[in-house]
């Protein structure tokens, strides 16, 4: 079992007038090698949730098991180094974390921190830069001369250079153009399929959930409201609307046709599936 949360709660600034409970009694499991989508409204606790995955935050109650490591409220920061190494988190607007003089140095920053030698780290950096599609000639440039999309890729390469087993992505597509979005998702899919990485992605885009994820975790006001396969998750449009979550566009269209009397063998979640079912129905 890769990741398991057992009755995890987290309260910001406990014991002050600014106290705020962000996570409330969350119990959930995420399997090794799965591609999980984390969805929920703004302020539902998604960002707090993912910061628990590598010990940036420790639960104020409950316990977390990640790859055999146990995190409780009493866990010391020193014990978390190893975990940080195994779990790579790409934060929102990750291009903001770049700081080195050259792209290569920035990508090599994390492996160097985790004890790789200078040359090992640079080799890793080159390999990961290639993986995310950064041209060799960009490696000696300053990261601040790149476009937003390129900077995002540099940041991603910087996380991948840690060679994590679990990759956590906090809304990695915000602000990218359609081509950039497709390209980035393709990279994640490759990492999942070729390198057998466990991937957890925070997103608001239900199309991406339908296209890439195999299970969905949904949060609402710090509480877990769903943890199931995407087919189950999208099976009840009514429930989704009630919780201010949406359907993928293809499913939305199918749901509207359903109201007009159309019958589906399970709501189609993407355009291909929609087209296939439509063709058979219309024959």
């Amino acid at each position, binding site marked *: 079992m890769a990741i398991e949360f057992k009755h995890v709660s987290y309260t910001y600034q406990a014991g002050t007038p600014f106290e705020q409970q962000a996570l409330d009694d969350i119990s959930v499991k995420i399997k090794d090698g799965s591609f999980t989508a984390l969805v929920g409204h703004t302020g539902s606790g998604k960002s707090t949730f993912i910061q628990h995955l590598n010990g940036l935050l420790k639960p104020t109650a409950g316990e977390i098991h990640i790859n055999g490591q146990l995190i409780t409220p009493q866990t010391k920061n020193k014990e978390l180094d190893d975990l940080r190494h195994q779990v790579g988190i790409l934060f929102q607007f990750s291009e903001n*974390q770049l*700081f080195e003089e050259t792209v290569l140095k920035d990508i090599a920053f994390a492996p160097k921190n985790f004890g790789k030698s200078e040359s090992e780290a640079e080799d890793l950096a080159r390999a990961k830069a290639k993986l995310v599609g950064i041209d060799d000639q960009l490696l000696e440039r300053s990261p601040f001369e790149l476009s937003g999309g390129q900077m995002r890729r540099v940041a991603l390469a910087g996380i991948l250079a840690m060679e994590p087993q679990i990759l956590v992505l906090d809304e990695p597509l915000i602000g990218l153009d359609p081509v950039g979005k497709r390209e980035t998702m393709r990279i994640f899919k490759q990492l999942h399929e070729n390198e057998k990485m466990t991937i957890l992605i925070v997103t608001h885009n239900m199309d991406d959930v339908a296209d890439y994820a195999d299970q969905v975790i949904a949060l609402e006001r710090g509480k877990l409201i769903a943890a199931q396969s995407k087919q189950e998750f999208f099976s009840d449009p009514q429930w989704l609307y009630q919780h201010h979550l949406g359907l993928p566009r293809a499913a939305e269209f199918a749901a509207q046709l359903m109201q007009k009397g159309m019958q589906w063998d399970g709501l189609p979640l993407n355009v291909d599936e929609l087209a296939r079912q439509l063709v058979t129905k219309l024959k």
Partner: protein
Amino acid sequence: MSNIILGRYIDGGSIIHRMDSRAKLILSLYFIVIVFLCNNWQTYALLGIFTLACVLLSKIKMSFFIKGVRPLIGLILITVLLQLFFTSGGTVYWQWGPFKLTSFGIINSIYIFCRIVLIVLMSTLLTVTTTPLEIADGLESLMAPLRKIKVPVDEIALMISIALRFVPTLMDETQKIINAQRARGVNFGEGNLFKQAKMLIPILIPLFVNSIKRAEDLAVAMEARGYQGGPNRTKYRQQHWHLVDTVGIVVFLALTGGLMLLRG
């Protein structure tokens, strides 16, 4: 970072919350002046009771104010100890080289302690009951006479309100950058001083870059909305002087009178 409470506003509907920020600013400054009028226990008792009454009036938990004093404890202790061991006069109880414990020293250090605590309490009261924007407005209005000597009051006021507006944004951003770099294996607060200073680079560079970018964007957005600077802009947030504010001033004047009477 979350332990710093100076400069944080706590919502509440108390009489002190509703006072005009100009009145509160003047009175907070004035309070620092009258603290120095105190020179015997009666005056300190009066001022202590008065401060306590103000704190109670604000309807904000006492524990919160105590937390506000806590970060300053080092400073208070040093000042008090210096007073305690380096004041001469009165009966000498103990002496060792330049250090001596005298009756004057003891009394003085108690007074200094009271003075600092009173001032910190009052300043905390100002910031927890007044939003930063109100403080900026109050400052602008109080600085208005300086226009006569060519001080760019409007620009300064705009700078202050923009600066205050971005304090929480920058704090958030700093926290995010810290998290991102921690996730890349930086262990803050470890190693020797030089090492720790070096760890600040991955935080400060992105923070500077983003701040400059943000400033450029903001400037363009302001110009696009017709901002040209200068005193010809109107004010949307109006300030109103109420009866409470006049009463506040009168109470402070009465307090000053009382202190003068009790002064030894």
